[in-house]
């Protein structure tokens, strides 16, 4: 994709093909791609994500063969046909449902790695933006997939999320009607969600292609954040990183298998085993775990439109990050202050996730009640969400821009392999990593 090709066609048929469709050259260059020699295991999540996308597409195509996308038949086709009657249907369905959670687990680690090591900074902004696009597409795909079993959580989740768009003045109502294909969530909604749920993974695959293309122009970032300076700083992708990624994928598959075979219901909600009923809202609606932090931000704000804008803004912060971070130092290894604020940000996101899973008026410290402020007790889940949301936005909009201008980073090494080669007594003081 970039740099001179080192491929030499060795057989007559390869030479013939190389002048017509250089697909072997393309693959060989991909495998020979010069990759920084110091990538750690946090860098294996790209490969793990490719594996996850593959699992979702393969299991999804199979499930679509047995699924009935209609309000009357969807629940039965999933819970009876696929889970009980179809040969190995239970396995394929559990792989697909668990796979969604595994996919998000991997993508969150991948995103956090990108933030920590500054992989979004020049010249990798487009690479980062494409990743953000993939993340948004993943959320849309996962949401629509969750609707398909047509249980109570599917139905009411669909209703709540589509109603979010109704918050926009003037056009809101028309957009929700367009999404629903009726006056409420119903069979037409299910059918179009199924169609889009089948389409979007292929759109994701296409954007992943662009993501890898954009990666191969500047090349990989690395844990030091220092640019690759010479050929000695790199190793070919194959066999070095095919093996490393392969090992990481194997470990990831163990975790995946634990959930599929021993805890398939761990991430599911009991309410989703009740068929969709438009006359009854479940007492406690919660989205899947990977959307909980955004749900908590939505609920933290006592006004509908502002809540929806905050939710969208929280995702928007990721898109804006390359232009919010003013620090020239990529890796947080050499930014001890930034590291602390970043770790607090992770704690805030986790707190938001916990808040999203709780009832808004529930107490944070059990048994304690304090004064009520803006509709809620100050010891309530809502107030914890408000504080954590405030930090979430402060981190991106105030801390990140100011810190880059004010902090004193540690000295970064001259090259990406000096921290590895440095003799402990002599050099460790300056290049400690």
């Amino acid at each position, binding site marked *: 994709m970039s740099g001179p090709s080192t491929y030499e066609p060795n057989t007559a048929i390869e030479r013939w093909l190389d002048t017509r469709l250089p697909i072997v050259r393309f693959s060989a260059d991909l495998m020979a791609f010069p990759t920084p020699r110091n990538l750690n295991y946090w860098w294996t999540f790209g490969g793990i994500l490719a594996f996850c996308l593959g699992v979702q597409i393969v299991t999804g195509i199979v499930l679509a063969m047995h699924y009935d996308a209609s309000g009357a038949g969807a629940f039965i086709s999933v819970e009876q046909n696929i889970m009980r009657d179809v040969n190995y249907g239970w396995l394929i369905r559990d792989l697909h449902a668990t796979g969604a959670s595994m996919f998000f687990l991997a993508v969150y680690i991948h995103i956090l790695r990108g933030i920590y090591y500054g992989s979004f900074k020049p010249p990798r902004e487009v690479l980062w933006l494409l990743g953000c696009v993939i993340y948004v597409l993943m959320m849309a795909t996962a949401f629509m997939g969750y609707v398909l079993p047509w249980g109570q959580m599917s139905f009411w989740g669909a209703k709540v999320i589509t109603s979010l768009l109704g918050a926009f003045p003037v056009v809101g109502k028309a957009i929700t009607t367009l999404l629903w294909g009726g006056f409420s969530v119903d069979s037409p909604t299910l059918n179009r969600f199924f169609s889009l749920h089948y389409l979007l993974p292929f759109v994701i695959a296409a954007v992943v292609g662009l993501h890898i293309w954009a990666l191969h122009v500047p090349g990989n970032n690395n844990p030091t954040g220092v640019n690759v300076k010479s050929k000695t700083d790199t190793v070919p992708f194959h066999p070095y990183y095919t093996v490393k990624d392969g090992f990481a994928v194997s470990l990831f598959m163990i975790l995946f298998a634990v959930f599929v075979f021993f805890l398939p219901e761990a991430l599911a909600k009991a309410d989703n085993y009740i068929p969709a009923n438009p006359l009854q809202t479940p007492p406690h609606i919660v989205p899947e775990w990977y959307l909980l932090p955004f749900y908590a931000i939505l609920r933290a704000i006592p006004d509908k*439109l502002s809540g929806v804008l905050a939710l969208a803004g929280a995702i928007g912060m990721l898109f804006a990050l390359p232009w919010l971070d003013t620090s020239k130092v990529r890796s947080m290894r050499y930014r001890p202050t930034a590291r602390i604020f970043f770790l607090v940000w992770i704690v805030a996101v986790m707190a938001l996730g916990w808040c999203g899973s709780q009832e808004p008026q529930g107490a944070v410290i059990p048994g304690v009640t304090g004064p009520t402020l803006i509709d809620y007790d100050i010891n309530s889940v809502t107030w914890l969400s408000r504080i954590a949301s405030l930090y979430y936005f402060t981190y991106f909009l105030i801390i990140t821009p100011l810190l880059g201008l004010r902090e004193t980073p540690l000295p970064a090494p001259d090259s990406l392999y000096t921290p590895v080669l440095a003799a402990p007594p002599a050099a460790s003081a300056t290049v400690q990593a």
Partner: protein
Amino acid sequence: MVDSLAQPADEAAGPEAHSRRDFIHIVATAAAIGGVAAVAWPLIDQLNPAADTLALASLEFDLTKVALGQEVVILWRKQPVFVRHRTPKEIAAAVADDHASMKDPATDASRTKPGHEQWLICLASCTHLGCIPTFAQGQYGGWLCPCHGSVYDTAARIRKGPAPKNLYLMPYTFLSDTKIKIG
């Protein structure tokens, strides 16, 4: 190559040739935009409710099924609808609050039909995100939405929480004292 050869010949033809070419560009572009729009509209409009969905327009309901102080939730156009038989005390409470500070001010009289004040009939979808509020909960004795805590009074007016509007009213008429037609 082709472009560089074509260019001088084109210029030799004088300014008239340029304006004719510009005209063709404009016409072609306009036709292409019009064509794309003409194709896009059916592709978007097919997402709107189909004729069979729109045909589920009206529904008759026998009010004798709802005891005093109770409510029934029915489906109209696949949307849940509250039919609430209000007690005199609930009506009095709603009327007393007519001029209280509210997000979406409305009088109790504007929420019901004259002579049938005991019947409050409205869409059962919370105007926040569409959950069905829980009957007789919340500090005003109206409804409390379980999802995000919006509180409605006994006239289904929003009094607290994130919902921006009162529960929506929909068109209905009294066919007799005990029978209504919704839609």
